[in-house]
């Protein structure tokens, strides 16, 4: 089956808001948040999308929303399908899907640590990568990393006479470095 | 006079062992088309290890284990027939010498058990498992050669039965024993393909993981003596001993051959190594043994 046929199948039963066909084997569709569980169950049991590749997420701060894309893969036709939903940024919560696809536990743990989205029903939301971190979720767009770095760490003082102190002569360097001396 | 002779013998065997370790580094480097470390590099390693300011020990068993290692090796040094020490203990025979060579492994097992590092325990259990392979082979070879030399296991008798030139050497009369003995020698020294007990990048140097500083220096010294003894056993059994110059020359020659095998091969797993010993070298040794007994 081709990608357009699969999207046609889904459109027969559910409400698809937008379609983005990137090439023959990969497409991304956008649906409503309340239809998410039904679409995933339909894809898994009726259309052979048994493998969850990844869950990815982007912070749209101007629209005040988070987007979550569930990437499903089918071994029979080797087609990758991305199912995208938009959720509210102020109160970021959604039900977990780890009873449909078990590996979703790890992806949701990662997204919870980096972006702060709460997945209701997932009991394994401990810290994963950032062991000694106690600030806000770092991948949000309102977290200024440069300001954090300037507050926490010190820098070496720049010494304009560094070349003279090391005894480097003009003949040893080549090209633009000669301007420094 | 006896004491002076003994000290000269200790000095000669230690220096030969160090030169052998340096030669193995240099030969490996030249085969891989690079300049290796200088030949006296193991000497600098030992001196650096002895000059470390702290030594971390995990208890009394670990201190005693180093003494047992070195003591067992030094004791078996004086049971080996050689042209340097005129008062070799003649009342003992080759079976006693092969038995005394088990003491270093057991001593290290005690020390590793005290240190309680899982890498060390895995390494030492592999080493003691591989003993079930090469020890049988070398014992069959030694007993077969003793039967061939008038039926007593008296080591100098085996050596003197090969006197009188190149034609009388055992390697020409009993070649299958020589092949089995060579493969067993690879296992005794821990050269590839039987290197799984050290296995540097898998279990972090195996049983030597928690030994550092002066303890590791003692292990290097013991390795130098052990090289001399074990290659010396092979030279005595098959190549006829020799006078004070040809003994060292033969040891260096056999060791360079061992090194060529070491450079080319990969490692066997433990089960594969024991299975290999029970298939090919022991069958060759048995065939040769039947031929000796019938004659």
């Amino acid at each position, binding site marked *: 089956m081709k990608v357009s046929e699969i999207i046609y199948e889904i459109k027969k039963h559910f409400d698809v808001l937008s379609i983005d066909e990137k090439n023959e084997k990969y497409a991304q569709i956008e649906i409503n948040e309340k239809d998410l569980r039904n679409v995933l169950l339909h894809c898994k049991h009726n259309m052979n999308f048994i493998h969850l590749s990844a869950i990815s997420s982007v912070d749209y701060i101007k629209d005040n929303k988070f987007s979550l894309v569930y990437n499903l893969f089918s071994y029979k036709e080797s087609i990758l399908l991305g199912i995208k939903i938009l959720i509210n940024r102020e109160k970021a919560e959604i039900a977990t899907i780890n009873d449909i696809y078990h590996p979703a536990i790890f992806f949701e743990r990662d997204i919870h640590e980096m972006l702060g989205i709460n997945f209701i029903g997932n009991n394994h939301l401990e810290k994963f990568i950032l062991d000694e971190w106690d600030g806000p979720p770092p991948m949000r767009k309102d977290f200024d990393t440069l300001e954090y770095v300037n507050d926490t760490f010190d820098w*070496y003082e720049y010494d304009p006479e560094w070349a003279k102190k090391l005894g480097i002569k003009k003949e040893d360097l080549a090209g633009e470095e000669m301007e420094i001396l | 006079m006896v004491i002076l002779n003994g000290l000269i013998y200790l000095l000669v065997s230690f220096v030969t062992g160090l030169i052998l370790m340096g030669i193995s580094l240099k030969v490996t480097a030249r085969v891989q088309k690079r300049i290796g470390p200088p030949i006296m590099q193991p000497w600098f390693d030992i001196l650096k290890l002895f000059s470390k300011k702290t030594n971390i020990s995990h208890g009394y068993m670990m201190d005693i284990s180093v003494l047992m290692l070195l003591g067992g090796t030094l004791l078996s040094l004086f049971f080996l027939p050689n042209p340097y020490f005129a008062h070799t203990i003649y009342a003992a025979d080759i079976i006693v010498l092969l038995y005394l060579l088990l003491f270093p492994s057991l001593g290290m097992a005690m020390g590793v058990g005290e240190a309680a590092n899982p890498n060390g325990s895995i390494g030492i259990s592999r080493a003691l498992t591989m003993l079930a392979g090469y020890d049988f082979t070398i014992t069959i070879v030694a007993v077969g050669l003793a039967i061939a030399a008038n039926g007593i296991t008296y080591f100098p008798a085996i050596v003197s039965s090969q006197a009188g030139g190149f034609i009388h050497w055992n390697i020409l009369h009993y070649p299958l024993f020589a092949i089995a003995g060579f493969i067993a020698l690879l296992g005794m020294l821990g050269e590839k393909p039987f290197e799984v007990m050290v296995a540097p990048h898998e279990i972090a*140097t195996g049983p030597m993981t928690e030994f550092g500083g002066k303890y590791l220096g003692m292990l290097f010294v013991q390795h130098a003596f052990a090289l001399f003894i074990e290659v010396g056993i092979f030279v005595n059994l098959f190549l006829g001993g020799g006078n004070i110059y040809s003994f060292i020359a033969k040891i260096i020659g056999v060791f360079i051959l061992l090194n060529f095998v070491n450079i080319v091969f990969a490692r066997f797993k433990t089960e594969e190594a024991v299975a290999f010993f029970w298939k090919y070298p022991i069958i060759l040794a048995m065939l040769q043994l039947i031929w000796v007994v019938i004659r």
Partner: protein
Amino acid sequence: MSNKKIVDQKAAWNHVYRRLNKRSLWMLHYCTGCGAVELPPTMTSRWDMSRFGVAPMVTPRQADILLITGYLAKKSLKRVILTYEQMQSPKWVVGFGSCTINGGMYWDSYSTIKQLSEYIPVDIYIAGCMPQPEAIIHGFNVLLDKINNGTANAWKDYYINYKKYRENQVKVLGEFVTNTDIEKEARYYGVVK
């Protein structure tokens, strides 16, 4: 008169120790960051490092040099500190690449450290991103000269200024527990009264 003779003997022994120490150095093969990809070419046939006596070794109990190759995340920093305290003195630390000097390519990242010498004492830095194998061998030769002169004593600095290092470590990592008794070792080496 007799006091002077004892001091001269000790200095002579130290001179001999240093000359022998520099002929055989073992580096810990702990690849902390992306700079470790330049170590295999340095160790193999083309730019042979073993002719200087430098060989790779796999456990911290037996190694002399700790090589920090590249950036250090906060998570690795804790493990590196625990490894450094398990090594036996005398020991040397070499900082590899620009990330140990002033942050390097990851200077504006929230989770890597910027200056290595605030947390453990460093003897020598090798600049580059990544340094070429010729630069690595030149760096090791400079370290060998420093050991020969007796000026590579940064490991003593750890005991003398331990309060400052511990303060910096706790500020970044929070309270954590080490199993080594630093005060007892400092008194054993005679560095601190």
